């Protein structure tokens, strides 16, 4: 390196990793996958081109609710480049027009009787190129009889509401389920005895994870071997294989799912979508590989949305703000099919962790799911199975309580936060929080932000504004969240009947490099790096020498994939345990090599040496070679060092954090500027701190997006009003301040290295902080997300908007 390029002398930002080799184990290192991503050398589904490959396109419904009177595909079929046109009637003949969902319902693949939301799949065209496929869509003639749609979830159960799922015999309404958690009687008693009750109606609007890469597939059925290879944007390749097998009747041994690089998932790529199945059917009809790649509007209109919880929360407290009880009623808009991807026994996901981070003696919630004429889904966008909704609810309610009682929002939190000695803590709805020191994280966030000085600044600003009537108003918003991630214990949870344990296979090559095969699936989180570091820490092999293999069912063990921040808690634990098995085997081999008893050996990261004699030792590489050599191996070692582990987590892990947001609002225009965002996260032991911070950065941006601009609203006809990035706004770096991150480390007591998940923490925790800040600035008790300039201004005028409907 020349002197001019030495960090600090050239004016360039110093490279935090300069001169550092990869750490042996945990610590900051440059992500191994970045070399290809930054050079544009990632390989995504749409990059895959197979010889003779055809292209699919989906014809979608323009109506939210309509009866299909006829479909004429003749025009499309006579297009010279069209090879097949598939309709619901074709699927019906194969028994595949409807498929089971993961939530005890069925969903249409291609509509047969009716269309039930705008953008629903009606027909699939297969052509020689993607242009011809699209051209042919306009040659299909569909005759619809429009029906009244159900758009407002509050109208879904009205006696005169049209029945969306009238194909189900005997169905006379749009009710899906009622579910409850907690102790209703104890909660009732707490409310009856309370000195004060605050209540608030709030909507967590329908939003969309909108990954950079949309969903896609290349399906390739070999007509000779009958083997189906599917390249897909799948966050859960093994689950997909099992589901495809069940739906199309090909046994798993003849299905291979390959998930190449994925450009963001956020739960959007857990489900199996109609387009995928159509491509699979199309390859079987045409005998050629078929690619289908969604466009942006299709992604926003038809794939898994998130949230859409209409909540009524009540909080009972003493006059000095000590919480006595929490009660919530939720109306959950699930769209036209109940297609949430979540543990089967939890129809509202983990929403019942809504007591959050507080000591709440009594709590009860009821959740009612309803059908509407909107796309199915609900569990996505880094929600940790609906903890986003739960966390937002309680953090808003605590602010409403502070507002009603005239107390400082920080002080109310201080009075109610769980204390360290309460852990492990069993909350009123049954979750057992593993570990935490909440006051420490909270006070750290306040101190980093300079909370007291901010409040003084705010008071000064208010006085100035009262005198001059000019300037912006500043607001401070807090949130403290508790997550529950790493699903999950087999006895408690399954998805589609599959227990949620994960496997890891670790192979150590003769010269001491290794490969780790995992069932989870990176979508940009940096698994190739983090998991290599996990093994490195256990075995003293450099992360550079450990290959992490994911996303190919032929090359990885069974497991349920990546979502719900479960990779490090579950697959990470499996990797640790497999590495420890390797280490114990290596100990036996080392003992044979050194001709000592295994008990006399001491492990020194990467090397066993004889107790008391550091010089008498062998490194992991030498041991690996010996394990593959002619050396006579001791009992308990069959040869080689490879190991497998299936890890069944004893509990979820409970990351937490304290967030503080400072905004400036222009009351004349309603525009919000996020001035500062302080985030203290505790995700237990941090494996690669830079990756952890990257995950937090993304989640904080999500929070600004949801709080200020993201929403999918619908007009009275059921038209989707957020079907492109011109209408569905994602935040940019311009809306994000320079994040101020802090941390505390409270290891998980039951995870083998004390790590908790981090992938969704900031998305869960940040929206409430931003909303609380805006409402604090304008002195309004409540207004729903997103707080667009129009909404902020309207809220100041005392007319907050219904953000899920068209603005009238």
């Amino acid at each position, binding site marked *: 390196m020349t002197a001019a390029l030495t960090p600090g002398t050239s004016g360039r930002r110093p490279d935090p990793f300069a001169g550092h080799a990869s750490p042996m184990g945990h610590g900051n290192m440059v992500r191994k996958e970045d070399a290809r991503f930054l050079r544009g050398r990632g390989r995504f589904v*749409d990059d895959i081109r197979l010889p003779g490959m055809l292209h699919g396109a989906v014809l979608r419904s323009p109506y939210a609710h309509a009866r299909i009177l006829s479909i004429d595909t003749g025009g499309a079929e006579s297009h010279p480049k069209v090879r097949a046109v598939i309709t619901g009637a074709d699927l019906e003949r194969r028994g595949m027009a409807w498929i089971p969902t993961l939530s005890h319902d069925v969903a249409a693949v291609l509509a047969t009787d009716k269309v039930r939301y705008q953008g629903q799949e009606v027909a699939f065209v297969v052509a020689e190129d*993607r*242009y011809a496929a*699209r*051209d042919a869509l306009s040659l299909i003639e569909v005759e619809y009889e429009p029906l009244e749609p159900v758009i407002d979830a509050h109208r879904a159960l009205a006696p005169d509401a049209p029945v969306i799922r009238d194909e189900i015999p005997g169905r006379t309404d749009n009710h899906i389920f009622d579910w409850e958690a907690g102790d209703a009687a104890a909660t009732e008693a707490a409310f009856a005895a309370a000195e004060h009750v605050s209540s608030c109606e709030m909507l967590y609007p329908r939003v969309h994870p909108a990954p950079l890469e949309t969903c896609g597939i290349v399906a390739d059925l070999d007509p000779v071997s009958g083997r189906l290879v599917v390249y897909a944007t799948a966050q859960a390749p093994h689950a997909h294989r099992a589901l495809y097998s069940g739906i199309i009747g090909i046994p798993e041994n003849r299905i291979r799912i390959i998930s190449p690089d994925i450009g963001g998932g956020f739960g959007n790529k857990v489900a199996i979508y109609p387009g995928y199945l159509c491509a699979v059917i199309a390859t079987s009809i045409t005998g050629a590989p078929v690619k289908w*790649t*969604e*466009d*942006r*509007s299709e992604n926003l209109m038809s794939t898994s949305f998130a949230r859409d919880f209409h909540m009524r929360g009540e909080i009972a407290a003493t006059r000095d703000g000590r919480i006595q009880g929490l009660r919530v009623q939720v109306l959950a808009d699930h769209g036209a099919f109940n297609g949430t991807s979540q543990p089967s026994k939890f129809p509202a996901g983990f929403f019942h962790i809504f007591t959050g981070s507080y000591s709440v003696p009594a709590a009860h919630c009821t959740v009612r799911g309803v059908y509407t004429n909107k796309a199915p889904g609900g569990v996505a966008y880094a929600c940790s199975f609906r903890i986003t909704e739960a966390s937002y609810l309680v953090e808003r309610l605590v602010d409403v309580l502070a507002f009603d009682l005239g107390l400082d929002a920080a002080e109310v939190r201080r009075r109610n936060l769980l204390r360290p000695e309460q852990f492990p803590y069993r909350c009123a709805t049954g979750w057992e929080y593993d570990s935490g020191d909440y006051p420490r994280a909270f006070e750290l966030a306040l101190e980093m932000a300079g909370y007291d000085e901010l409040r003084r600044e705010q008071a000064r600003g208010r006085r100035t504004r009262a005198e001059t009537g000019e300037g912006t108003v500043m607001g401070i918003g807090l949130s403290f969240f508790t997550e529950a991630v790493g699903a999950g214990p087999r006895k408690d949870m399954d998805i589609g009947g599959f227990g949620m344990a994960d496997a890891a296979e670790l192979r150590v090559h003769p010269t001491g490099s290794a490969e780790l095969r995992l069932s989870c699936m990176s979508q940009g989180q940096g698994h190739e790096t983090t998991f290599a570091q996990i093994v490195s820490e256990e075995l003293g092999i450099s992360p550079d020498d450990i290959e992490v293999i994911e996303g190919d069912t032929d090359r990885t063990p069974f497991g349920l994939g990546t979502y719900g921040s479960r990779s490090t808690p579950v697959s990470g634990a499996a990797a640790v345990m497999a590495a420890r098995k390797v280490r114990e085997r290596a100990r036996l081999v080392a003992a044979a090599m050194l001709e000592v008893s295994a008990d006399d050996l001491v492990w020194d990261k990467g090397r066993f040496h004889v107790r008391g004699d550091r010089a008498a030792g062998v490194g992991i590489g030498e041991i690996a070679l010996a394990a593959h050599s002619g050396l006579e191996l001791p009992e308990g070692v069959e040869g080689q060092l490879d190991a497998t582990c299936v890890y069944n987590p004893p509990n979820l892990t409970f990351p937490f954090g304290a967030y503080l947001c400072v905004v400036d609002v222009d009351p*004349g*225009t*309603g*525009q919000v500027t996020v001035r500062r965002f302080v985030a203290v996260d505790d995700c237990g032991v941090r494996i690669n701190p830079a990756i952890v911070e990257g995950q937090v950065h993304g989640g904080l941006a999500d929070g600004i997006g949801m709080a*200020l*601009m993201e929403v999918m*609203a619908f007009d009275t006809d059921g038209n989707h*009003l*957020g079907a*492109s990035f*011109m*209408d569905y*706004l994602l*935040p*940019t770096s*311009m*809306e994000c301040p320079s994040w101020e991150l802090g941390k505390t480390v409270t290891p998980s007591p039951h995870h083998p290295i004390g790590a908790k998940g981090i992938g969704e923490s900031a998305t869960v925790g940040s929206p409430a902080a931003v909303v609380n800040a805006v409402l604090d600035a304008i002195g309004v008790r409540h207004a729903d997300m997103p707080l*667009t*300039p*129009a909404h902020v*201004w*309207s809220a100041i*005028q005392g007319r907050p*908007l219904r953000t899920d409907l*068209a*603005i*009238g």
Partner: protein
Amino acid sequence: MQVPAHFEYQRATSVEDAIALLERYGPESRIVAGGHSLIPMMKLRLAQPELLVDINGLADLGGISLAGDVLRIGAMVRHAELLASVTAGTHFPLLHDAERVIADPVVRNRGTVGGSVCQADPSEDLSAAFTALRATAVIEGSAGVRRVPMREFFHGPYQTAVGPAEVLVELQIPLSNSATLAGSSSAYLKVDRRAGDWAVAAAAAVLRIDRDSVVTEVGIGLTAVGARQFAAVEAEDFLRGRQLTGEHIAEAGDIAAQHCSPVADQRGPVDYKRHLAGELARRALHAAAARADLAIIGRL
């Protein structure tokens, strides 16, 4: 993936050639400039021209320069070029205000001034800017060159004075309102939901005041609020000849708000947009006044 329908493509070698191509292929042919409005519409198949006539690279349509008593801006000048132009910024600071909030750098690198005004989207920022500046559009067809004042240029949403076989050559802004003249300046203010978003509403203000702070000329442009020809004519008429006081500016804002006709959409309800029209007109006038004459601020 979004893909456009079939179309043909021809690269014009001169303005005359472009006009000839448009005439030969008729109404299904379209000029493509930066393509940042047209191509997205083609990908969504909302526009399906049969022929694209590419005018990129026609030197006659480029450049920003002073010519006599006008500043001329070629139709093919990119947003980024206008934003970087010291000449444009010195004479008409509102052009830089506007360019700074149009789309994002990627769009600004390709999108053109001519394409913006020819697109005539009700939310196009430059439409209100040029309207406030009383620019003139220079349009060329096989019959020759026409000059159309900006305030007669827009015939409705997505409709302009440019005929199907005509090319917008340049925009000319009279230097009589140049900020280099004492008592004269301009400003543009926009409210959006996010950087790079189209305007919820925006306002352009051009002011000239004499030594006694009397308004001798004023231009007020409004974006995205349904103002006829993007202009707040009634507010201009009110201010012209009046003393520039805080009260008068406030009243001009109210008049501008009354006379526009915004429509509700997901950017906001009518009452909010109407409020913004007034609020932004007021603020833009204040900002222009402050630039025109720093001494005046104390008096407002």
